[in-house]
C-alpha cells in the first residue's frame, strides 16, 4: 500500500514538474509578446493542410486568417453601408452598353510583400491562370463567363465576357464572406508548372500581414505585420498602421475550452457563441463584451435569416395556403423567446434578410403594402396577416423582465424589426382546409389519411436555426399537428436539401446585404428546378413561381445601378411574400465576443466602423483600428 501511495505521489510530482513552460501572461505559447499579439479564434477546425496558403490549391483553409490577412480582392465590402468599395481596384468597373466589356482601373502604390509593384499583369495572369488550369475548382465557371482578359496599361484591365454580364464586381468581388478571385503575384506564379499544386508555404502577399510561423499539425498560424505595411492594400487605402505586430489565428477546440480560453484571456476574439456561453464568460470576466454592451448583446446583421423552409415539390407543402397556415399557426413572440430570449430582429419576409441595410432598402418601403395586404379566404372574408406591434410588445415584455430596452421607435425597429406575422390559429385552420387538409376529431387528415410531417434541423452548428426549428415544432404541436422533428448531421444536410429529401426544415436559403438583390434571388428561378431526388443548381426548396422567375430573368439583364433593378427587387419581395416560400424568423443573430484585457476599440454598436465579422475577408480593414490597451 505504501508503495502505491509513493507511486501516486511521484506521479503527481512529475505532473507538476512537467507543467513548466506554459504560456505566461507576458508571452504567448509561440513566444511572441502578448501585448503585441492579437489572438483570434479560427472559425474552422484544425487544418490538415498546414503550410498551404495558396487559395487556388484545393483544401486550403482560407478562414484560418489566410483570406482575412494575406490576400486581396478587386472589390471589398463595407459591411455597415452594405456597399462595395475598390480594394485592389481603384473604383467600380466601367462597362459598355451591353455589359460585355468591362474596364477595371487598379489602385496604384500597392506593392507585394517582396517589394514588387502590384500591376495589371497580376490581375491578367490570375484570371488567365484560372481560365487555363483545369485543376482549379473555378476553372469551368470562369470559362462560361470570360471570353478574355487583357492588360490595357499597367493599371488598367479589360475584361470581355461571353454574354452580357452586368454584375462583374458583385460576382468577382466580395459581397459577404469573401470571393474566389484573389489576385496572385504574377512574378512568382508564372514560374510554376502547375499553380493548383503549389502549396505556397512562404506567400508573397498584398495584404498587411505575412506568415511568420505555422503549426505543422494545423492548430495555429502566426502572422506578422509587414515592415512595409504602408505598401499593402490596407496601408494604401486607410493609411492607418495595424497596431498588432502579430496576429495569432488559433483553433480552440470544443465550446467549453473556447469559453475557458476567453475567460482566462488566452484569446482576444471569438467567433460565434451562444447567449448562455456569453453570460458565463461575461460574469467571470468583465473585460469580455459583445456587439451591444447590454441586452440584446448580439449583432443582427448577419445576412442569413433563419426560419422554416418547405420542400415545395411535395404536397401539401406546395400550396401557399399551407405555408401561410403554418406562418399564422405559430406564435412568433413565443418563438422569439425560445430562441434567444427575445433577442433578434424579426426578418419574416421570405428570401431577403432584414439586415440594417436591407431593412431600410426593402422592408420599410413596403411597410404600407404589408399593412394593406390581405389573404383572401374561401369563406369570402379576408385577413391582413401583418403585425406591426411586435416590436412594442417585445419591448414591454423584456422591459418588465428588467432589461433596458429603448423607447425610441427607430431604435426599437433596429432591435426588433418592423413587424412579424400575426398569431391567428383560427385563420390558419381555414388556410389548411383551403390547402386540402381536413380536420377531424382525432386530428388533421390529408387525402383521407392522417396527416403528419417532419421538421429537420442541422445537428452540429447554427444554434439559432436549430432552436428556431424546435420552437416551430412546439408551436405546430400546440396547434394540433401530429408532426415529428429530427436532427440531421452535416454529412447529409446539404444533400437532403438539394435532392428535396425533407418536408419542413431549418434551412437558411437567404443571404445578402447589397441593394442589388439579383445574386441573392437568381437561384429561385423555376427553370432551375429538377425533379425530386436529383441535384440541380437552383434552390432545393423547388419554389415554382412564374412571376418571380420573370422578375429574376429581367433583373439579369439590368445593371445593378439601374433604378428599375431596385423596383424589380421590391416587386419580387411582394410576389414572394404573397406566396411565402420561406418563413423567416430573425435575421442572422450573432454573439461574437471580444476581450479587452490586451486590445480594445473593437467594432461595436457604439463604435460601428465595421461589423464584427472576424471570419470575413474584410477583417484586414478592421485590424488597423484595434488598439492595444495602455
Amino acid at each position, binding site marked *: 500500500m505504501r508503495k502505491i501511495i509513493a507511486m501516486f505521489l511521484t506521479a503527481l510530482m512529475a*505532473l507538476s514538474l512537467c507543467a513548466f513552460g*506554459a504560456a505566461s501572461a507576458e508571452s504567448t505559447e509561440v513566444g511572441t509578446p502578448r501585448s503585441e499579439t492579437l489572438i483570434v479564434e479560427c472559425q474552422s477546425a484544425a487544418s*490538415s493542410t498546414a503550410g498551404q496558403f495558396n487559395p487556388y490549391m484545393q483544401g486550403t483553409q482560407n478562414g484560418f486568417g489566410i483570406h482575412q490577412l494575406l490576400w486581396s480582392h478587386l472589390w471589398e465590402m463595407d459591411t455597415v453601408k452594405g456597399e462595395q468599395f475598390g480594394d485592389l481596384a481603384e473604383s467600380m468597373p466601367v462597362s459598355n452598353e451591353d455589359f460585355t466589356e468591362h474596364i477595371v482601373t487598379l489602385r496604384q502604390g500597392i506593392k507585394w510583400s517582396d517589394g514588387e509593384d502590384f500591376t495589371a499583369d497580376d490581375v491578367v495572369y490570375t484570371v488567365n491562370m484560372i481560365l487555363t488550369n*483545369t485543376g482549379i475548382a*473555378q476553372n469551368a465557371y470562369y470559362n*462560361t463567363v470570360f471570353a478574355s482578359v487583357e492588360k490595357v496599361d499597367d493599371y488598367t484591365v479589360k475584361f470581355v465576357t461571353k454574354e452580357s454580364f452586368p454584375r462583374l464586381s458583385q460576382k468577382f468581388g466580395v459581397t459577404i464572406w469573401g470571393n474566389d478571385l484573389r489576385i496572385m503575384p504574377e512574378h512568382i506564379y508564372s514560374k510554376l508548372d502547375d499553380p493548383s499544386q503549389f502549396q505556397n508555404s512562404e506567400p508573397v502577399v498584398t495584404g498587411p500581414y505575412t506568415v511568420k510561423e505555422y503549426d505543422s499539425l494545423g492548430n495555429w498560424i502566426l502572422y506578422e505585420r509587414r515592415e512595409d505595411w504602408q505598401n499593402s492594400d490596407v496601408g494604401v487605402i486607410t493609411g492607418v498602421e495595424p497596431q498588432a505586430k502579430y496576429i495569432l489565428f488559433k483553433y480552440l477546440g470544443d465550446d467549453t*475550452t473556447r469559453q*475557458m480560453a476567453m475567460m482566462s484571456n488566452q484569446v482576444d476574439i471569438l467567433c460565434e457563441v451562444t447567449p448562455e456561453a456569453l453570460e458565463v464568460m461575461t460574469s467571470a470576466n468583465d473585460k469580455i463584451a459583445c456587439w451591444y454592451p447590454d441586452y440584446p448583446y448580439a449583432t443582427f446583421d448577419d445576412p442569413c435569416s433563419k426560419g422554416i423552409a418547405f420542400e415545395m415539390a411535395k404536397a401539401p407543402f406546395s400550396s401557399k395556403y399551407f405555408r401561410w397556415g403554418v406562418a399564422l399557426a405559430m406564435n412568433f413572440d413565443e418563438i422569439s423567446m425560445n430562441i434567444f430570449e427575445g433577442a433578434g430582429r424579426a426578418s419574416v419576409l421570405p428570401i431577403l434578410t432584414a439586415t440594417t441595410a436591407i431593412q431600410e432598402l426593402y422592408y420599410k418601403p413596403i411597410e404600407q403594402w404589408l399593412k394593406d395586404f390581405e389573404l383572401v379566404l374561401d369563406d369570402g372574408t379576408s385577413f391582413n396577416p401583418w403585425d406591426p406591434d411586435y416590436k412594442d410588445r417585445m419591448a414591454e415584455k423584456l422591459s418588465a423582465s428588467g432589461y433596458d430596452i429603448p423607447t425610441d421607435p427607430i431604435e426599437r425597429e433596429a432591435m426588433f424589426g418592423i413587424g412579424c406575422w400575426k398569431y391567428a390559429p383560427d385563420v390558419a385552420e381555414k388556410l389548411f382546409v383551403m390547402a386540402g387538409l381536413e380536420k377531424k376529431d382525432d386530428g388533421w387528415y390529408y387525402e383521407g389519411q392522417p396527416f403528419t410531417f417532419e421538421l429537420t434541423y442541422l445537428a452540429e452548428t447554427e444554434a439559432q436555426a436549430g432552436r428556431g426549428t424546435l420552437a416551430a415544432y412546439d408551436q405546430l404541436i400546440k396547434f394540433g399537428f401530429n408532426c415529428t422533428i429530427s436532427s440531421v448531421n452535416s454529412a*447529409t444536410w446539404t444533400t437532403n436539401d438539394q435532392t428535396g429529401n425533407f418536408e419542413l426544415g431549418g434551412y437558411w436559403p437567404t443571404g445578402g446585404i447589397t441593394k442589388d438583390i439579383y445574386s441573392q434571388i437568381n437561384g429561385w428561378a423555376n427553370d432551375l428546378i429538377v425533379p425530386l431526388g436529383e441535384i440541380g443548381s437552383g434552390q432545393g426548396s423547388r419554389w415554382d413561381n412564374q412571376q418571380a422567375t420573370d422578375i429574376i430573368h429581367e433583373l439579369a439583364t439590368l445593371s445593378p445601378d439601374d433604378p428599375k433593378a431596385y423596383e424589380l427587387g421590391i416587386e419580387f419581395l411582394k410576389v414572394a411574400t404573397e406566396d411565402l416560400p420561406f418563413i423567416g424568423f430573425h435575421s442572422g443573430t450573432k454573439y461574437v465576443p471580444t476581450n479587452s484585457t490586451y486590445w480594445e476599440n473593437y467594432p461595436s454598436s457604439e463604435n460601428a466602423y465595421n461589423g464584427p465579422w472576424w471570419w470575413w475577408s474584410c477583417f484586414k480593414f478592421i485590424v488597423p483600428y484595434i488598439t492595444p490597451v495602455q
Partner: protein
Amino acid sequence: MKFWKYFGLRLFTWALTIFIGVTFIFFIPRMFPSDPVETMIGQIQARSGQMDPAEKAALRKTLRVQFGLEGSLSEQYLSYLNRGLLHFDFGPSLMNFPADTRSIIGKYLPYTLGLSLTSTLIAWVIGNVIGLLAGFRKDKRSSKILEGIAIAIYPIPYFLVALVLQIVFAFVLKWFDLQSFILTNNGVWQFVRSLVRASILPGVSMLLLGTGWWIISMKSLAATTAAEEFVLYARYRGLSESKIGKDYVFRNSILTQITALAMSLGTVFSGSIMTEIIFGYPGVGKLLQSAILQSDYNMILGVITISIVAISTATLIADLVYPFIDPRIRYS
C-alpha cells in the same frame, strides 16, 4: 506440422476478416444519403451566402471529376482493393483535396498510437497488478480500498473525467495549456518537451478509466482462481503466498487479460476521439470524425482500413503467442 497447419488456417481467417471488413467499409459510406461534392458546395455556400446557379453547376462537375467519383461503383471498388489494400494508397482526401490521404494519416497516426498505446499498456499493467492484489488478498484492507477506488472511478463517464482534469489543471491551476500545444518547428528538445506536456492530461484521463476496468476484471479473475483447488493444494504444500500469487493465480488469470488487451487495442483508433476533441490532441480520431461529417470516403477508408488491419493483426498475434504463455494450449 500442427503449428503450420494452425498458422495457415489462422492466416486465412486473418485475410478473410480484413477483406470482409474493408468491403463493408467501402460500401457503407456510399450508401449514406450524403455526397462529398454537395457537402463541399454546401460549406462554400453557407460561408458566402450565395452562389450563382451556373457557378454551382460548373463547380459540381469539376469536383466530381477531380474527386474520382465519376466511375461506376465496381470500378471504384476494384481500384480501392488494388491501391488501398495492397499499397495503402487511398487516394486524395476529399476534404483536403488534393492532399494525399496516406500522408495526412501518417502525420497524425503516431500521436494517436503514442498516446493510446502507451496509456492502454500502462493501464493494463497497473490495473492487473492492483487487480491481482485485490483479488488474491481480498480480505486485506488495502485490497478493499483499491477495489473501492476502481469501482468508484470506472463508471464515471470519460468526458467528465477529462473535463475535470482540464478545468483543474489547465484552467484553474494553469499548469497546462487548455488545448494541446505541440511545437513541431523548434527543434527536437522543444518538440519532446511540448509533446510530453501536451500528452499528460489526455494520458492521465485515459489511464484513470482504463486502469479501473483492468482492476475490476483482474480482481474478479484472481479471486475466482484463488478459490480453485490447485491453489488450495499449493497452500497445503506450504508454498509461500508470493509464489502462489505469482505462479498459480497470476499466470492462470492473465490469459483472459491478454485476449482482452489484444481486443482493446482496437479502441486505440475509435476510443481516442473524445480525448482528441476535449484536449485538442492531434490524432486520427478527429480526422475520422471530420471525414464522416464531410463524406470524405477516402479518409474514412484510410483510417478504418488501417484500424481493421491493426486489430486483426493484434488478434492474430495474440492467438499465436497463447501456447507460449500457457502450455495447456496447443496448436490444434
